[in-house]
C-alpha cells in the first residue's frame, strides 16, 4: 500500500503529509529546548552574585562555529533550490557542503569539550586555589592516596580571609575572565607544579564542576546530537537516498525540504545558545 500524500498536497490541509509531520516534530523540539532554556534562566538567576561564569568559553571559536552553522543553513536551502530547478550537480555540491560543515561544527565542538576536560580546578592544602590547563600528570597521580604530581598552565587565587571588595576581585579571577581582573590573571598564567600531597581536591571543568557547565554540556550536547542526527539524514539523502531523484523527483524534493526544515531549526537553536552561553 502506498503512503498517501508524500508529494501531492492533501486537499484539506494544502500540505503534503511529511511537512505537517516535521512541523509537529519541531513543535515538540521547541518545548524540549524551551524547558532547558527555562532551566538555564532559573539556574542563572538563582546563583549568588559573582559566581556565574563570564568568559569561560572561547568567543572567536564560538563565533567561527556560529558562522559554520549559518553557512550550512544557506547550503541546505541552496540544495533544495537546486532540486526545485532540477539541477542534480548543484544539489550534490551544496548538500556535500552541508555535510562537511556539519562535521566541521562537531569537530570544533569536540575541541571545545576537550579544552574543558583538560582544564583543572585545584584546591590546595595551604587554602589557595589553582586554576589552569593540564600540561602533564604523572601516571600515579592520585589526590586520595597522595601519590604523584600534576603540572598545569594557570594561576593561583586566594579566597582565605577575604571579604567585600577583596573577595570580589579574587572571584573575578576565576568567574569573570572578561573583567580586567580576570584578564590580568589569565595573562599572568604560568607553569605550576603540585605534588598530590599538597592538594586537597582537584577536578576538571566537566559538568560536575559548576552548574553553568552542567547546563552548558546539557544544552550543547543535546544540540550536537541534533547536528549529528541531521547530518546522518542529509548524508543518506546525498548518498543512497538520492536514487529517488529519478524515480520520484517531487517526493525527493519534499524530503530535502523536510530535512532542511530540521536543519534550520538546529541553526535556530544555536542562534540563541551562542549569545546565552558564550557572551552573556
Amino acid at each position, binding site marked *: 500500500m*502506498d*503512503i*498517501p*500524500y*508524500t*508529494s*501531492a*498536497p*492533501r*486537499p484539506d*490541509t*494544502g*500540505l503534503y503529509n511529511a*511537512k*505537517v509531520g516535521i*512541523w*509537529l516534530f519541531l*513543535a515538540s523540539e*521547541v*518545548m524540549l529546548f*524551551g*524547558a532547558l*532554556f*527555562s*532551566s538555564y*534562566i*532559573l539556574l542563572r*538567576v538563582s546563583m549568588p552574585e559573582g559566581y556565574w561564569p563570564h568568559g569561560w568559553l572561547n*568567543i572567536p571559536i564560538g*563565533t567561527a562555529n*556560529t*558562522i559554520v552553522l*549559518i*553557512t550550512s*543553513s*544557506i547550503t*541546505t*536551502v*541552496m540544495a533544495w*533550490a537546486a532540486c*526545485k*530547478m*532540477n539541477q542534480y550537480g548543484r544539489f550534490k555540491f551544496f548538500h556535500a557542503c552541508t555535510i562537511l560543515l556539519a562535521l566541521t561544527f562537531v569537530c570544533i565542538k569536540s575541541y571545545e569539550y576537550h579544552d574543558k576536560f583538560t582544564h583543572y580546578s585545584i584546591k590546595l592544602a595551604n587554602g589557595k586555589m589553582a586554576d589552569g590547563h593540564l600540561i602533564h600528570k604523572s601516571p600515579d597521580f592520585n589526590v586520595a592516596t597522595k601519590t604523584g604530581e600534576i603540572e598545569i598552565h594557570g594561576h593561583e587565587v586566594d579566597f582565605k580571609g577575604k571579604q567585600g571588595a577583596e573577595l570580589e576581585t579574587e572571584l573575578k579571577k576565576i568567574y569573570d575572565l572578561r573583567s580586567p581582573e580576570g584578564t590580568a590573571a589569565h595573562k599572568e598564567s604560568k607553569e605550576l607544579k603540585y605534588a598530590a600531597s599538597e592538594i586537597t581536591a582537584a577536578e576538571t571543568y566537566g559538568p560536575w564542576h559548576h552548574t553553568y557547565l552542567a547546563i552548558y554540556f546539557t544544552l550543547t550536547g543535546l544540540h550536537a546530537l541534533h547536528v549529528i542526527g541531521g547530518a546522518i539524514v542529509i548524508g543518506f539523502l546525498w548518498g543512497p537516498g538520492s536514487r529517488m531523484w529519478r524515480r*520520484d*523527483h*517531487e*517526493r525527493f524534493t519534499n524530503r530535502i525540504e523536510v530535512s*532542511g*526544515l530540521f536543519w*534550520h*531549526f538546529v*541553526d*535556530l537553536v544555536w*542562534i*540563541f545558545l*551562542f*549569545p*546565552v552561553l558564550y*557572551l*552573556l
Partner: protein
Amino acid sequence: METHQTTGTAAVAAPVHDEHFQEHIRRYLYVFYALIFGTVITVLASYIPFGGHRSLNIAVALVIASGKAFLVCGYFMHLISERKMIYGILAFTAFFFVGLMFLTLWSFGDPPSFLTTH
C-alpha cells in the same frame, strides 16, 4: 519536470521556472549576509559596557538573536508565506513556550512573602 501523485485527488505541483527561483536565491543570499552581520554585531555589542548594566547586554543580544531567528524562520523555513495549518501548529507551540518561560518567573514568587519568617 515530471511530477508524481501518490493518491487520487491531490493536485500536481506546478513546474518551477529558473528565473523565478533566481530571485529566491538572491533573497537567501541577502538573508545569509544579514545573519553573518548579526553574528558579528552580537559579539561586538557584548563588549559594550552599558554603564555596568549586564542586563542591557543581555537584552541587546536577545533582540539581535530574535531578529536572526525571524530571518531563519521567515525566509529559510518559508514561514513568511506558509499554509494556515502550520501557523496553527506554531500558535499552540508559542502559547506553551511562553507559559514555560513564565513558569520560571513565577517560581521567584515562592514562598509567598507573607509566609516567610524573616
